[in-house]
């Protein structure tokens, strides 16, 4: 777990440097300070389970078996990336190999989709749990609600982790909901909902494990709210001027990596050893991504349908006269 925490952090730092150099295509959404949630929960899943990460759940996909190269090539929109440059950053997956489902930008959509994966698994007689994450902001979407309505009466093995990082872009959670704990939303469905410390990777692991195994045992969907803080702006152009003074500093003291180091009793030597391993992996990923070509424009017309002949079409002015 420690390795993944460090790797996630290092990838994020490095991506921001690349972003400064104008090498990152499109947006960049930092997960600094929130890494424990992705990693603790991903460790709590079985290999056969399904998971849909959000854009900030880099840690999850790494634990599930995607590589640092996958992350970096996605940021740089390269032909070697999992989506071959078709979709942004964290929007990729591989159901068969890693059980990861590609997220899309419309927030909330993955709750019904993952409910459906749990349903599919059950119909096929397979013992798989489906897990997804949702931001504090996105808990205000109808999709979150409709997915859980269906999942609750169907008693689907779905775990929804509310990653409450206090903000949705510039909007504080107090402007999304009157609730102190968003896990109380579970009461609308008659399902279990608990809240925990999202900056403590071991607590995350323990609570996620409990929810996952309860869901697996037939307990129906589970909501787990994990409190954390988004240490950077929504994206690099956001200077977080709307965050009250001192709050960021207060949360910096609760940094999940530092806390876990304390638990592990790691000294400088151990940290440096992992740091070196991580640096090598990041370096390799960046090098690989930078050296990879952009996709060939000709590919743009392929792959909308299984039958690739439906879309391509010679426009009038390109035909022989």
């Amino acid at each position: 777990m420690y390795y993944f925490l460090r790797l996630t952090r290092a990838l994020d730092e490095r991506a921001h440097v690349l972003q400064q150099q104008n090498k990152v295509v499109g947006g960049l959404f930092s997960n600094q300070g929130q890494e424990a949630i992705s990693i603790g929960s991903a460790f709590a899943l079985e290999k056969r389970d399904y998971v849909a990460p959000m854009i900030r759940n880099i840690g999850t996909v790494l634990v599930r078996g995607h590589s640092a190269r996958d992350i970096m090539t996605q940021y740089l929109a390269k032909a070697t990336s999992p989506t071959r440059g078709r979709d942004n950053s964290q929007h990729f997956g591989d159901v068969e190999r890693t059980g990861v489902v590609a997220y899309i930008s419309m927030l909330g959509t993955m709750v019904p989709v993952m409910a459906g994966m749990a349903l599919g698994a059950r119909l096929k007689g397979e013992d798989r749990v489906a897990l997804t994450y949702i931001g504090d902001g996105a808990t205000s979407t109808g999709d979150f609600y409709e997915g859980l309505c269906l999942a609750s009466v169907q008693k689907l093995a779905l775990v929804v982790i509310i990653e409450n990082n206090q903000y949705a872009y510039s909007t504080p959670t107090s402007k999304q909901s009157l609730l102190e704990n968003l896990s109380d939303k579970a009461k609308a469905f008659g399902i279990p909902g608990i809240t925990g410390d999202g900056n403590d990777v071991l607590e995350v692991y323990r609570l996620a494990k409990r929810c996952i195994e309860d869901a697996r045992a037939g307990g129906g969907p589970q909501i787990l709210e994990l409190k954390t803080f988004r240490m950077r702006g929504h994206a690099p152009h956001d200077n977080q001027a709307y965050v009250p003074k001192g709050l960021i500093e207060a949360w910096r003291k609760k940094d999940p990596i530092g806390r876990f180091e304390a638990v592990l009793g790691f000294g400088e030597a151990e940290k440096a050893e992992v740091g070196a391993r991580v640096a090598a992996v990041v370096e390799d990923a960046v090098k690989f991504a930078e050296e990879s070509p952009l996709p060939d424009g000709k590919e743009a017309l392929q792959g909308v349908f299984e039958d690739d002949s439906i879309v391509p079409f010679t426009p009038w002015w390109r035909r022989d006269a």
Partner: protein
Amino acid sequence: MPELTFLDAISRGLWEEMEADPTVFLMGEDIGAYGGAFKVTKGFLEKFGPGRVIETTLSEEGFVGAAIGAAYTGLRPVVEFQFIDFIACAFDMIVNVAGTSRYRWGKGVPVTFRGPWGAGGRAGPFHSRSIEMWFAHSPGLKVVAPATPSDAKGLLKACIRDNDPCIFLEHKHLYRRIKEEVADGSPAIPLGRARVVRPGEDLTIVTYGMMLHRTMEAVAALEGRSIEVLDLRTIYPLDRAAVVESVKKTGKVMTVTEDTRTGSIAGEIAAVLCEEAFEHLDGPVVRVTSPDVPIPFAPTLEDAVLPSVKDIAGAADRLLRY
């Protein structure tokens, strides 16, 4: 061969696919013991059990999302909308998640979305809409709209077997009004191919759904004129080749749809003909459509909005004389 109504043909098609392929299952409101609002799935719960006939909560976006997820696990969900108009409530999920999925990350979404569609039934603005172009205009979705029992059965099978999301439109005005002999175990009919319902030399009328039947009435009224009638059957992908081939013969084309004019498939056909057969056009590509209004409730108003047999015949006659 059993004589089947349009509705029975759809029901049989669904039944045969479920028998043949255990990965096919159903989702929707009231489709279980009740058999669905129009009884398309009557008897399915008893035969296939609650594991394959899943009654959902009243959450269109939610159960469409769940169908997509189930498809990701390798199943083939068939989703019923109680009226196709309610597909608007699941719009985001269909155009954004389902439509783009294969293109984005290579994961196809073999879901069939089906439901009662179309006007003419005095059902008012929210149970009569033509929704085909919202989806034909959104990349990654196929849109299918049969006009006869045999086509309905065969095309529904093709949709279910297709590895991409299909929207299957069942004109509710045809459900119990038309009958045809359709063999048990009849094969799937390939998507994307129009059908020449009647050959002709002087004018091509392109249509689909209920309007095919009004068109045939109009053509009968114009007896002695050589009119070719083309049933599109699939709105997306459009069978451009069939339309172009027909106009090469007749030189004149008219489209008939109950959809509202602006942005309907009729415009698309005009554009395709301009681009691919301009030199063959001996007259304007003429559109007979509804005006750009919601479908009103009262019979007099609805009749004033939908293309009538007289409208179709009048337009055809005028174009023939052009």
